[in-house]
């Protein structure tokens, strides 16, 4: 993985000093709340319902064991013993004290981490495929490009006061595991007509109040021009994006109002005016960064079947929580953070430290964070998966539900977030209580359930095969259900099935949707595909046929 050189190190250390001084001035009354807000926001610090929330970047989802150990240690010493992993490969601490934040940032800097630009109207953490470098289907490892973008976007002098937040995702595999079409810019590694390396560039995707799927701005961009092209898009957005209405300020609104043709014309014209003398990424720099992601020192192994002779619990876990690896004899292992009685995406300090130790022992000392809020040990020898499973199971980290209904994406909701209209963690709990039969869950197969506590859509409900959105109805928490959304290659927005339902009726509503699916599905048809084939109608009819049982 990438390691800091003296420039990277200097920058994060000087950032800590800068933020320490800003915090001191705020606490001393030299800065008002209004003056401090844009400063703290560019450092991932929100003021939340109970306490400040600090969001720490995990660039493109990659952590060293040492970094994860530090995250665990911070959770224990500065928070209440846990952290929350997000869909954008960040970790959030919900209970730090404002006056401790500079010290937390200093500890992060010591392990080459930061909270720079994890909130605020600037370029956020660049996200990527959590399985990068380990999957068989990859065209090229996207992480060097993510790191190049991370550096370019850090303290970008021109693009730190954008109309609104700006999110970039990069993928290098034909299978999109990074929800790239739902980002302000999606960068897809592709090959040109003659096999030359480059990118397809999308823009204008995003969720929130106005969900939009990104559109292709350029089919093929030669690789050395990546940064200049991003710069052209950002410049058009910075100059022309709306600043009069926070709800219309994302680039998706600009792309929609101009139309993709006109947006493309402007970007191309801007790019043409400086691309030949502007910032190019020199080949030496591409190679310098790429060298950090050279193939790991894999052993020469043959594929085996670790399930032979093992019990059903291990076999179920192996089937659902592991994934094919590009190297014979290796396996990608998912660590589910979706244990039924735990808030989705949460891990305790002890769990983080244990996973760090397991990463050292079984997976080259690296851990990844996924879009679906789980962790991954990406390079595990197949023969070691059984003992790894036992260690994970002891720590409550082997819930065999990856890809199933209970592997749900969920925002912190009303319990923590000051924006939320409704709880999401407690609804997750109700759903887990209702759907605890694994035979049934496995029979249902792959279903992305995504839940947000408000229309800001941090839980990506629009792109859930089943989406749940918390709404406030006269001071009560109600839930609007949608079906048919997807975040991958076949990205689509779900359709709302009808009037929102009360909290206690959410599990029954899901049960009815699933009942229709089980009745109507073709062999090997996913829930999503059944919805796409039949439309919302039969589902809606069943859900609203009679009052939902209490």
């Amino acid at each position, binding site marked *: 993985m990438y390691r800091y050189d003296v420039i990277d190190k*200097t*920058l994060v250390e000087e950032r800590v000093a800068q933020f320490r001084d800003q915090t001191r001035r705020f606490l001393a009354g030299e800065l008002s709340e209004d003056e401090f807000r844009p400063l703290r926001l560019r450092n991932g610090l929100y003021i939340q319902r109970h306490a400040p929330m600090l969001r720490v970047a995990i660039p493109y989802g990659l952590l060293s064991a040492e970094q994860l150990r530090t995250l665990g240690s911070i959770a224990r010493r500065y928070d209440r013993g846990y952290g929350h992993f997000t869909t954008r490969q960040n970790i959030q601490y919900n209970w730090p004290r404002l006056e401790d934040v500079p010290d937390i940032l200093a500890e992060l800097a010591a392990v080459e981490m930061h909270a720079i630009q994890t909130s605020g109207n600037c370029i956020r953490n660049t996200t990527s495929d959590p399985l990068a470098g380990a999957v068989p289907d990859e065209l090229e490892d996207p992480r060097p490009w993510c790191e190049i973008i991370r550096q370019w976007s850090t303290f970008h*002098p*021109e693009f*730190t*006061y954008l109309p609104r937040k700006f999110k970039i995702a990069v993928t290098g595999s034909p299978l999109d595991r990074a929800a790239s079409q739902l980002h302000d810019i999606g960068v897809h590694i592709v090959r040109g007509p003659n096999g030359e390396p480059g990118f397809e560039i999308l823009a204008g995707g995003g969720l929130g109040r106005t969900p939009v799927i990104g559109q292709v701005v350029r089919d093929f961009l030669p690789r050395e021009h990546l940064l200049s092209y991003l710069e052209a898009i950002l410049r058009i957005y910075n100059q022309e994006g709306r600043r009069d209405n926070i709800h219309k300020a994302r680039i998706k609104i600009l792309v929609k109002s101009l139309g993709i043709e006109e947006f493309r014309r402007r970007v191309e014209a801007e790019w043409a005016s400086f691309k030949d003398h502007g*910032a190019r990424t020199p080949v030496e720099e591409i190679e310098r960064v790429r060298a950090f992601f050279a193939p790991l020192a894999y052993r020469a192994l043959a594929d085996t079947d670790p399930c032979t002779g093992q019990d059903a619990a291990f076999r179920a876990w192996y089937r659902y929580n592991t994934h094919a690896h590009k190297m014979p004899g290796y396996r990608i292992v998912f660590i589910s953070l979706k244990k039924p009685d735990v808030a989705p995406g949460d891990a305790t300090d002890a769990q983080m430290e244990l996973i760090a130790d397991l990463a050292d022992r079984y997976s080259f000392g690296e851990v990844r964070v996924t879009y679906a809020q789980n962790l991954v040990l990406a390079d595990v020898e197949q023969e070691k998966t059984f003992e790894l499973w036992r260690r994970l199971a002891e720590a409550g980290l082997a819930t065999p539900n990856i890809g199933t209904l209970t592997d749900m994406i969920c925002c912190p909701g009303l319990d923590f977030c000051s924006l939320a209209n409704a709880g999401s963690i407690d609804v997750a709990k109700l759903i887990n209580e209702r759907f605890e039969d694994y035979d049934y869950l496995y029979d249902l197969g792959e279903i992305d359930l995504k839940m947000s506590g408000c229309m800001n859509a941090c839980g990506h409900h629009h792109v859930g095969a089943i989406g749940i959105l918390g709404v406030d109805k006269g001071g009560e928490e109600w839930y609007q259900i949608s079906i048919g959304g997807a975040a991958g290659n076949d990205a689509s927005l779900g359709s709302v099935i009808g009037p929102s339902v009360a909290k206690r009726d959410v599990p029954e509503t899901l049960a009815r949707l699933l009942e229709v699916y089980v009745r109507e599905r073709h062999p090997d048809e996913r829930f999503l595909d059944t919805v796409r084939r039949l439309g919302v109608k039969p589902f809606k009819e069943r859900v609203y046929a009679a009052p939902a049982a209490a």
Partner: protein
Amino acid sequence: MPRRLLRDGAVVVDEWRTAGDGGAAGDDTTASEGAVGDGDALMIALSEFRAERERWLTRAGPLGVILLPADDELELVPDLARLALVAAEFPTVGEGRGYTQGRLLRERWGFAGELRARGAVRRDQVFLLARCGFNSFELPESEFEGALAALGTFSAAYQSSDDRGLRTALRHR
């Protein structure tokens, strides 16, 4: 007391006047006493410049133009050699268009005169503004010391730029 500002890393008296100076009593933007003379350095809004461009360009004293966020700096390009100053107005801290205006004026159009940030500018913005090519800053006097120090916030940078006056180590050139 004459108005002062930061320019090229030092506190200096601001010799620039705006069109309203010497007019309305109690105008707190007044830089110095008296009406604006023909030889005084004068900055005007782009709209004023546009309305009487020929006349302004033949003016004896130094001429400057103030850009609002929505203004297009491209309009000034034919006359940049005649302008001694361009100022970008920042109505709020979060206003980001001036950063692009400044950067393009310096890097793309080679503007060599004074590039000034005015409005809601505080010490926490001057570093990035300087990296976009701004070399003077209208700030409250209480911010001078902090802003001078803030010009050295970072000693390294990832992006090349025309940030005269800042000494930053670059990886990408």
